[in-house]
């Protein structure tokens, strides 16, 4: 069936959309399937969601190379389950009988709107539950941080007959939606810091479906306010309720297949905090700890059979190396639906 399409933004300059090459790539005739193809394209644009959610949700997200078509909306709900029992106390890996397994579950309402073929706006609203399997600590739940992002396609360059290379810039920010505490790590909903992230992504999509993505981001984080007037971290007692949060550097790559509204990707990502102290032996983690990690995982996105414009997601990642973070296994699953407000232009 249809197959095909080249999303407005899938890596080809607009003129190419109307060129013969489009049909070569798509492998179908535009007239019969043009509209449907357009919808399908939008689904793939949903790839851009999530990012900067809880630590657990640093998965394939705002950091990919896909753009939505103009005046289309992609929205849905995703469930994320993140759990760990082993964690890194500084560089020492250990388990802790006072917390057992820490599980963080998140439901994210996500929406992505294509303002133009080169500008997308993204919004995420996560609700988070935390729980410790051992010990006596009470879990927490509530709305966490709103994410807003503007994703802009800077340039798209065809690479011979094989595909296209795109450069994308993303400016995103997060804003805590409630006054949740950052002072009960690892059971706090998040860090309660306002953040601003600049991101650059290079993406290659080949005509046969080869998908290569590289992305790097730098995140500024605002001070965090505690409910107490002194705290000890990183070798010092601070006589203040204000905590300076180290900025974050992230990068990642994804490699795989993406075609016909189907994505099969292998993912790798790294976070390096630009400062912060280590968790001290037998202490609780602290909000400004140096949280570094390396994750590897996979992303599967498939069209739901017989339901037009609906896509099913499954994303898995494993934190295989880290510092002051849990050795987490994380999966995200959910459905994303695409709604076009404007028919795709057809020649």
């Amino acid at each position: 069936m249809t197959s095909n399409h080249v999303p407005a933004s899938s890596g080809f300059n607009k003129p190419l959309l109307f060129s013969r090459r489009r049909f070569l790539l798509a492998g179908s005739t535009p007239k019969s399937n043009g509209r449907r193809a357009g919808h399908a394209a939008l689904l793939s644009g949903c790839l851009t969601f999530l990012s900067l959610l809880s630590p657990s949700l640093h998965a394939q997200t705002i950091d990919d190379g896909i753009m939505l078509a103009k005046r289309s909306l992609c929205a849905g709900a995703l469930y994320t389950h993140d759990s760990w029992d082993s964690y890194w106390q500084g560089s020492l890996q250990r388990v802790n009988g006072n917390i057992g397994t820490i599980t963080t579950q998140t439901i994210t309402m996500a929406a992505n709107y294509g303002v133009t073929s080169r500008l997308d706006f993204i919004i995420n609203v996560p609700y988070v539950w935390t729980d410790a399997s051992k010990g006596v600590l009470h879990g927490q739940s509530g709305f966490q941080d709103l994410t807003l992002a503007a994703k802009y396609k800077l340039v798209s360059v065809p690479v011979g007959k094989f595909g296209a290379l795109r450069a994308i810039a993303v400016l995103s920010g997060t804003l805590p939606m409630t006054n949740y505490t950052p002072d009960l790590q690892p059971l706090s909903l998040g860090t309660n810091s306002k953040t601003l992230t600049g991101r650059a992504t290079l993406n290659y999509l080949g005509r046969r479906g080869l998908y290569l993505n590289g992305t790097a981001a730098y995140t500024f984080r605002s001070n965090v306010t505690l409910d107490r007037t002194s705290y000890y971290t990183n070798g010092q007692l601070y006589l203040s309720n204000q905590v300076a949060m180290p900025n974050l550097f992230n990068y990642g790559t994804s490699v795989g297949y993406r075609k016909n509204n189907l994505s099969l990707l292998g993912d790798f990502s790294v976070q390096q905090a630009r400062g912060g102290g280590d968790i001290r032996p037998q202490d609780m983690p602290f909000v400004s700890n140096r949280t570094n990690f390396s994750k590897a995982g996979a992303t599967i996105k498939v069209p739901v059979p017989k339901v037009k414009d609906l896509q099913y997601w499954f994303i898995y990642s494993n934190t295989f190396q880290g510092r002051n973070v849990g050795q987490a296994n994380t999966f995200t699953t959910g459905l994303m639906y695409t709604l076009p407000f404007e028919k795709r232009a057809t020649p």
Partner: protein
Amino acid sequence: MTTIVTKKTPLLRTSISAAIFLALALSTSSCSKDIPTSEPLPAVTPANTDANAGAWKMIVLSGPTQIAVAAPAPVSDPGYQSELASIKTAQASLTDAQKTAITYWSSGGVLRWNQIMREIAARSDLPPSPNPDGSYPVPNPANPFANPQYPFSNPPYAARAYSYVSVAQFEALKTAWYYKYQYNRPSPFKTDTGIKALLPDSNIPSYPSEDAVEAGVNAALLTLLFPTSVDEINAKAAEQQQVALISGRASASDIAAGVALGKAVAAVFAARAATDGMKAAGGSPAIWQSLAANATARGEIPWISQDGPPRPPMLPVFGKVKAWMMTPTDIVNERPGPPPSTSSAQMQTETAEVKSIVNSLTRDQQATVYKWADGVSTVTPPGHWDAIAEPYISAASFSEVRASRSFALLNMALHDAAVACWDAKYFYFNPRPSQLDPSIKTQTGLPNFPSYVSGHSDFSAAGSDVLSYLFPSGATYFQAQMQEAAMSRLYAGIHYRSDINVGMDHGKRIGDYTVSFAKTDGAN
């Protein structure tokens, strides 16, 4: 070629968006990332010299003459004159670091040493991690740098440490005042007009130097109590002595006499500390078992550790450690009556109340819990009350000896509250709410010792009692803080209401012992 044309616009847009991004990024990062580690405190000029402080009642020393301080050389002495000359030399080439140090210590060494002590106590407030076999290592004072480091500055340990340093400093300063007004040697800047007064003129004689007394007594006792922080302690002590000199306030002989006095007083307190019962406070497996057996014999459910793996109880014999203002008989006499029986309807009701509160906490109540958590890596509840006292002492423009009196009185009461509270906790060995009802989940870390009575309530009532006496204008505030601290433990789900109410009442009675002393110590 269309591509080429269209590319130009994106490039322009790119640079605009890049500029916007940078501007936003800078505006975010510019919100002050630097959090000061030490509070700026105003320079203090004592409102009163407290010239009679040498006659104030002593607590441990027999009197000011227990430590002899030899008479200083006359100001005309050539040796003293050369001391003055070296101050002038030093003042001629002050470094920026020295100027910063002068500003730092100008708020008064008593306040600064209290801050330093809180930092060290917080650093040492780490329970040992379990061994692979589920047992726990014990910090070893004979090998303090080994893992786990000595000490684990838990609340009773910290209460005792704060009190030792504060009381010793108070005794040393009273002794210093005695000799200051006996010998009446003026500060170098008064004797020699070529010497600048870089600290406010207190009109207090300079021999022996109060700054040096503080450096000597604090360095010796803090090193004894927190051996792994020795480098930081010595650096602060050396800096304070240097500031006394280069500020023109004290000469080398003023300082030498002060350090010697401080160390001599510290030695008296070190000897007391060696035999005050602290060494036995950890108990033994046989003692831990007998505590549980006693509770069982009374028909009560005994406390058990809910740490994973279960941890020996925290300092079960701390209730036998020597108090400052109370005899062992006083401790027993003041011991509260028993908590509601673990099998009583009242205990059932109180447990249900804890569960209901902990599961419906408002954000304000949560904030109270976190404000008063005072758990691992904190200054602990006694340190929290020192922090509450700090702005009142600073604003009062006390002489150093009177400032030290405030901290001594406060920390004596807090230590005695720790002793009396631990006595009650281990006498009754009462389980925590989360033990009686495992479905109760706590909003802060669960302390590893019995429930009755609440330490926060006890400490806070004693602290509030003493501070209300010293600073009547703040009494309403101190009481409010006490109420909040006490209730925070109910909100946190780690105490029943009776632990809190009885604890506050108990703490007030303990505090009154110190207040009675303060009323008659000659300082009013």
